[in-house]
């Protein structure tokens, strides 16, 4: 089964890098959806089946933390796991996000191996 993935980042270059990286993981990737902020991400989630979300924290309009809170309110986090990809290395912040339901945290810059390991850990090998 191919996984549908949502990449949420205000940076086009990061969205492109994540998409390219996903194709290098060796995992069967279905459709890759993109969103520039948390608000757009919620809209994509309403309209498409998404297996896993990779999201930045620091974004305009709605940041990644607010997006996770909204998803938790809508009880979407069990069905759609969220992985944060960020430059923020504060362990306090990471613990806070994990306590809100985020499943994993990757620091930028990341490697295809780290992305693959996170997907397999959360969803299993497709």
């Amino acid at each position, binding site marked *: 089964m191919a996984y549908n993935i949502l990449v949420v980042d*205000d*940076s*086009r*270059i*990061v969205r*492109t*890098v994540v998409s*390219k990286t996903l194709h290098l993981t060796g995992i069967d990737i279905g459709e890759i959806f993109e969103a520039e902020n948390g608000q757009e991400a919620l809209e994509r989630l309403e309209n498409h089946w998404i297996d896993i979300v990779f999201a930045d924290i*620091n*974004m*305009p309009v709605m940041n990644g933390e607010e997006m996770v809170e909204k998803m938790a309110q809508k009880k979407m986090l069990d069905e759609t796991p969220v992985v944060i990809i*960020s*430059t*923020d*290395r*504060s*362990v*306090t*912040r990471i613990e*806070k996000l994990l306590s809100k339901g985020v499943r994993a945290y990757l*620091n*930028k*810059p990341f490697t295809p191996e780290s992305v693959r390991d996170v997907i397999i850990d959360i969803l299993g090998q497709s």
Partner: protein
Amino acid sequence: MNNTTKDIVRKVVKDVLERFAFMFVDEPDGSEKADWSDDILHAVISFNGEFRGRLSITAPVSFCTEVTANVLGIDPEENAGEMACDALRELINIICGELVVALYGNKPIFNLSIPTLDRIDSDRCRTLSADPNHLQFSADGTPILVGLSITE
């Protein structure tokens, strides 16, 4: 910027540019005059937490295009110019994230602003390069300036 802070900035900038953009970075000695004749971008990001500060990167568009090409693994001629501004914003975002941890440890939370970007002229570049809060680097032969100011 004191000498300890300068050393931390040097290490972080070199490390991030090598890992993120696969670029070799060194510091020109004082005798070399940087050529700022190219089209120049000036990115700024603020951090706010136990300390507040402002980080800037000043670089020619050609540098940003090269970063884009290296990150995406494409030829610089191949659409890399379209994402040059984006590449500089992301670069300063990563450097700032690494820098606050290198300066203050990984316990405190710092909120980073959305990076802003302006075009500046060569006179402004020369003024910045003379500022003691700015460090000059050469990334694959292209001059860049990194500035840091911190307030308690």
